[in-house]
């Protein structure tokens, strides 16, 4: 091959990239043109046929109206004022407006008053490696909870965009969700990308202001750090069936607990889920689901105390696999929730973790094998007993089992050196009453008998407010 100048090389390179460039492609271009021409003709004729049919129909209808015997063309003399009959076109007279495409904006205000019998700083669900955040009832006394700002809009004919930022009471900002979603894939397919609440479980996708209790179930707090947000991509497919059948898959960076951010190009948080739902009669609707989450973490650190009561930092590196089964049932007389509604919901989560557990990473720094098989569940019922008034009951239960810790089995350390991992069966019972003056405001009182600590019961009273401003929220199931 002759030596080419850099410019010629560039031309060859570009012509290779362009599908229609190059001599060999001219025939293809001609063929494509012919095809396009044929398509165009075909569509033009089809459109003409349709137009003719519409005209025919319209004139037929108009003739029918005119020819109607006994139908007075105008209202009788004593008739009530006739409505102006507008043309089916939007009202004229709107001038161009730079704000016409502004997205839907909504702001949720939440806050509470908390009275807790135990020091919230010492809160820990006994028997489990604690998540970095999301555990416990929060601080005592008055608290400004998150102020949640959502901006959402279609981006173009192909994508929808949504950002939900939670401005926290401590003046920090969390991006809860910031995702794009396809709207033009058809065939029941939707792809989401960015940061989004994972589709695993039932409660995970629901924002805090739509929860039926002021806080998350214990099992969500411990296994998912409250709520699992993926940085990644999700694909969902709804089956073309009368029953609701939905399948989904996710791949994420693992940034959110139970994974950790890792210095790796690979994915570290994969999820699969399937949902099935339908109605029974006109009063009851239901949905059940199963989900599977596989997350990997590197040096997922947590604070603990050793057998002498000395604070230590331990870290887990390995794989966390979680199975979730969820079920939700809603009942309302004739399906109308205005005056009465009953909602029953429950989820069971089972998690196995295996890998390495490092002890006192800033001091003695010993490491050994670790594996655990743990589970937890909750069931809750909420009943609207009077228009705008609801009462609810929730029960939480967790089973820590006894994790297998290599450092203990080999005799390097006593089991007491891992205080947080002592076998426990935490539980909690919660009751609540809430009052919604409108669709946009809610006041709630909640009381919990929380036996999550290994030691003493925490009695928690929470008084909460939730106000929604701006764009109308979605009535999700």
């Amino acid at each position, binding site marked *: 091959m002759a030596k080419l100048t850099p410019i010629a090389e560039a031309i060859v390179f570009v012509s290779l990239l362009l599908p229609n460039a190059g001599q060999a492609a001219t025939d293809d271009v001609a063929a494509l043109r012919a095809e396009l021409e044929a398509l165009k003709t075909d569509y033009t004729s089809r459109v003409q*046929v*349709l137009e003719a*049919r*519409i005209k*025919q*129909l*319209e004139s037929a*209808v108009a003739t*029918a109206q005119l020819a*109607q015997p*006994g*139908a*007075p063309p105008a209202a009788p003399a004593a*008739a*009530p*004022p006739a*409505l102006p*009959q507008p043309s089916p076109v*939007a009202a004229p007279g709107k001038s161009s407006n730079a704000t016409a495409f502004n997205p839907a904006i909504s702001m949720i205000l939440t806050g509470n008053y908390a009275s807790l019998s135990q020091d919230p700083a010492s809160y820990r669900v006994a028997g489990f490696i604690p998540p970095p955040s999301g555990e416990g009832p929060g601080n005592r006394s008055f608290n400004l909870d998150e102020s949640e700002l959502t901006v959402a809009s279609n981006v173009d004919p192909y994508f*929808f965009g949504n950002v939900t930022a939670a401005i926290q009471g401590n003046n920090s900002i969390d991006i809860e969700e910031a995702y794009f979603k396809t*709207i033009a894939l*058809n*065939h*029941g397919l*939707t792809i989401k990308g960015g940061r989004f609440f994972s589709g695993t479980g039932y409660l995970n996708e629901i924002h805090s202001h739509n929860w039926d209790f002021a806080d998350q179930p214990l099992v969500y707090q411990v296994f998912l750090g409250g709520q699992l947000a993926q940085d990644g991509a999700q*694909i969902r*497919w*709804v089956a*073309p*069936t009368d*029953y*609701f059948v*939905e*399948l989904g*898959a996710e*791949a994420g960076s693992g940034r959110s607990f139970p994974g950790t951010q890792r210095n790796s190009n690979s994915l570290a948080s*994969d999820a*699969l889920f399937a949902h*099935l*739902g*339908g*109605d029974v009669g*006109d009063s009851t*609707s*239901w*949905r059940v689901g199963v989900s599977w989450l596989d997350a990997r973490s590197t040096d997922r650190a947590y604070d603990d105390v050793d057998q002498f009561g000395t604070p230590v930092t331990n870290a887990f590196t390995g794989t966390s696999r979680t199975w979730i089964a969820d079920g939700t049932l809603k009942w309302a007389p*004739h*399906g*109308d*929730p*205005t005056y009465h509604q009953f909602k029953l919901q429950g989820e069971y989560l089972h998690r196995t973790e295996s890998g390495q557990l490092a002890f006192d990473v800033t001091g003695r720094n010993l490491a050994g094998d670790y594996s655990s098989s743990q589970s937890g569940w909750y069931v809750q019922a909420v009943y609207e007993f009077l228009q*705008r008034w609801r009462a609810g009951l929730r029960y939480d239960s967790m089973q820590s089992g006894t994790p297998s810790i290599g450092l203990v089995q080999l005799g390097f350390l006593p089991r007491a050196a891992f205080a947080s991992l002592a076998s426990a069966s935490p539980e909690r019972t919660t009751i609540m009453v809430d009052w919604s003056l*409108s669709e946009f405001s809610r006041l709630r009182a909640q009381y919990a008998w929380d036996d999550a600590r290994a030691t003493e019961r925490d009695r928690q009273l929470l008084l909460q407010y939730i106000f929604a*401003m701006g764009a*109308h*929220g*979605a*009535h*999700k*199931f």
Partner: protein
Amino acid sequence: MPEYVRSLLALAAVALCVAALPAQAALKVLATTPDWAALVTELGGDKVNVYTATSAFQDVHRVDAKPSLVARARTADLVVATGADLEIGWMPVLLQDSGNTKIQPGSPGYFEAAPLVHLLEVPSAVDRSMGDIHPLGNPHVTLDPRNIAIIAKALAARLVLIDSANAAYYATRGEDFQKRWQQATVGWEAKAAPLRSVGVVVIHRDQAYLCNWLGLKELASIEPKPGVPPSVGYLAELVAKLAATPPKMILRNAYNDPRAAEWLSERIHAPVVLLPYSVGGTPEAKDLFGLFDDTINRLLAALK
């Protein structure tokens, strides 16, 4: 992750199989109310397969985007909705979750009725302190047969557009419906003449079009503001206010709570008239014709 890749491939394979399936014979329609379902049936006959999202006993605004509705939206060829924000809590969720491009706003498969007719009570300014008001105007447009005629014409044209193979069928049925509807409307108007200028109390602002059509005078609304239930104090004020201009009747829809209306009825000595409001709201309101027949019969019976 092999499991992940495998599941993605499986999903794609299933999706392709589904895409390759031949189109269903009957046009699948998801109607948000029984009235739109009845209208589609009038126009589409056995060429359409209609699923109704709500019943006459449901407040259409308060519905959830429940799984069964997402499933129906997924397979629908046409969605017939009221629009004017009546279904704003759930329709956008259905449209997004369905993954069905045929029924997205702007497509021929998405039909809204309210924007076709002249809307009453369009507020000049809106604020949530005014209750559940609709910025685009009162969306409860069905109870004026002149609106139904306009909507039916556009809906028939839409059926022709979507299912051109059956264009002649829809054209004939549309023509026939308009003929019968015109005749019936004339009959209703003649029959309802005694109702003109009769004073009534309503519960919610959903009888506005009926009152406008028949010349009924809305003296008061039991809800102090749209969507806001009355307090005892407000009801007492209402009793005092209505003493000067006593209404002949209190109108109640099938889905309304009867208690406030009955409480008021005892005090102002005006009967509560149960109206179907939607097709299926009373046993007599079997279709759109029955809906208007029964509504007028019940109003006239209360007048006697």
